[in-house]
């Protein structure tokens, strides 16, 4: 077994902004701007960040739902960046995605049974309708739905049930890797917990690897072994989830953690929100992207963009300084 199921190296996804009569490219939206990471087989890899930081684009690019602008994606030892057509179809089978909005990610005119069977027919996994049907019913049962619901339409279900259908559909191809793109953010809290438990038990049962995209830190903490923090198209910190939460090294991660409201009125003072807005991904600031909102920023941060550096073992940070956040002081410069 390969240790790293997915390795992403220097991935870029820039969306061109066209304007004018001839559609000349005026500028680019740098949704994903030089990202490298790897996902180990069998783990849940979290990606967290504010809205618009490129985490969804990253997830879609990793499974090649959109073509990367440059960089490479290596899936269990094989470079799939340039694969197309039939060869890519084999890999599409192994990599699935569950979308954020279960209300919109199912064809409203298709029964859920036929939605679950469709991928099996496309990839020729079943011999006939009967086999597909029995497999679909098994999947419905596996995600906690009644197999008798086979012939119902999506609008007859609640959001949580629809998300279960979406999961069953992703599972119908026996994938190895699933990108979960905020799978619970449009659901009620109680339903969120059910879906998260379902996802965890499926991962154990079917030996799946997840890439879990979310802006909800509590969910990330619950689900993920390792977590990457994204800011404006780049990963600013990667570490084991416990270390991200207990010993964050990047000022943005710290700010993100501090902005979570705590259910304790005495601790209200601790709630610190970040000042300012995320800069536009079209006009990315020079040097460090976070410097405009960072209270530790210096001239060095404006001059030179920091690179991802392994500050401790398996703890990577993209910052010029090693900051001691309890004393609010810079310890030392870590980039040479």
């Amino acid at each position, binding site marked *: 077994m390969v240790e790293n199921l997915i390795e992403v190296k220097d991935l870029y996804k820039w969306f061109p902004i066209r304007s004018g009569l001839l559609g000349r490219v005026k500028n680019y939206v740098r949704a994903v701007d030089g990202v490298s990471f790897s996902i180990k087989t069998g783990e849940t890899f979290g990606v967290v960040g504010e809205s618009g930081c490129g985490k969804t684009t990253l997830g879609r690019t990793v*499974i090649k*739902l959109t073509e990367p602008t440059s960089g490479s994606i290596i899936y269990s030892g094989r470079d799939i960046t340039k694969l197309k057509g039939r060869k890519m*179809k084999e890999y*599409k*089978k192994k990599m*699935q*995605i569950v*979308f954020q*909005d279960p209300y*919109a*990610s*199912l*064809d*409203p*005119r*298709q*029964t859920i049974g036929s939605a679950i069977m*469709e*991928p099996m027919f*496309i*990839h020729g996994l079943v011999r006939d309708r009967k086999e597909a049907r029995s497999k679909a019913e098994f999947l419905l049962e596996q995600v906690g739905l009644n197999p*008798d*619901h*086979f*012939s*119902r*339409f999506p*609008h*007859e279900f609640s959001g949580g049930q629809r998300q279960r259908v*979406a999961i069953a*559909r*992703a599972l*119908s*191809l026996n994938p190895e890797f699933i990108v979960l793109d905020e799978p619970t953010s449009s659901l009620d809290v109680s339903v969120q917990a059910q879906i998260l438990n379902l996802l965890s038990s499926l991962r154990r049962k079917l030996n799946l690897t997840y890439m879990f995209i979310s802006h909800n830190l509590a969910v990330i903490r619950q689900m993920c072994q390792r977590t990457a923090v994204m800011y404006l198209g780049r990963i600013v910190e990667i570490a084991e989830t416990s270390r991200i939460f207990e010993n964050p090294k990047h000022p943005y991660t710290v700010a993100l953690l501090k902005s979570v409201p705590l259910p304790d009125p005495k601790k209200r003072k601790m709630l610190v929100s970040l000042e300012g807005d995320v800069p536009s991904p079209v006009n990315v600031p020079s040097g460090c992207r976070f410097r405009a909102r960072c209270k530790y920023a210096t001239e060095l941060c404006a001059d030179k963009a920091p690179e991802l550096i392994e500050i401790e073992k398996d703890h990577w940070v993209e910052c010029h300084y090693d900051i001691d956040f309890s004393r609010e002081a810079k310890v030392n410069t870590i980039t040479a």
Partner: protein
Amino acid sequence: MNQAQSSRFQEARYAFYLFRRNPVVLAGAIISMAALILSILSPYIVNPSLWRITDLTKRLCWNNHMINWGIRNVFDCGGSTYILGTDSYGRDLLKMIIIAIPLDMQISLEVVFSAVLIGVVFGSVAAYAGGIIDEFVLRITDIFLAVPGILLAIVMMVILGRTIPILTFAVLVTWWPTYVRLMRSQVLSEKEKPYVESLKAIGAGRFRILFRHIIPNSIYPIIVQATLDIGSVILTVSALTFIGLTPSPLLPELGTLASSGAQYVFTAPWLTIFPGLAILIISLGFNLLGDGIRDVFDPRLRR
């Protein structure tokens, strides 16, 4: 009854309920149905043995005794023998109208079906392919939309000749661009929906996505428009034949009948009134039915 049937059955029943609760729509449905049934039954009502002669000149009723050709019956004002009276040639107006309705319906259905077909194919391909193909299809529809429809039809008929097929073709030429536009806009909004993305993720090809998912999801406005247009095409066709673009002034066709009756509007008003009423009722019926179908499929009125 298994689940599939019950689920679909409920949908159908609910649609029928929405339909039934509105009496105006029900009236529209009944009129449209009646017009269709009359079109089918027409040859059995008016002398079926002679109806098989498809030759148009035979239908024009020279020497055709089924229309009751005879000088002694000229301008019968209706009542016992001839319910709606007779025209200047002594032809029975009721029988003429019964023959005329299928002809108008046929032209109208041909035009609408062809326009829908062209619209669905070109509109969806243009929207789905995008880029230069989209631009090309759009510019062609622009050219046709730039010329006023009736004028284009008149010019075509004057140049190509005054026959029924050319009349049909001329109306179709003015009618298809709307459907291409409508289908294109539907597919454009449909193809951006998240379920299309999730179909791509499961590896569905572009043809499967377009024909199995996007087109069935965007066809409803087209069906509504088509139903509304069956009435409108009848109106346009009879307008064209009324102003004289008819193969023969004796042709049993609603516009032609009204037109030839208009000469005697003071002496024999029924010759204009009854064909005109037939046009009015049929086009009104299809318009009401179209409105009803729109209500049934309108998501805002659903659960």
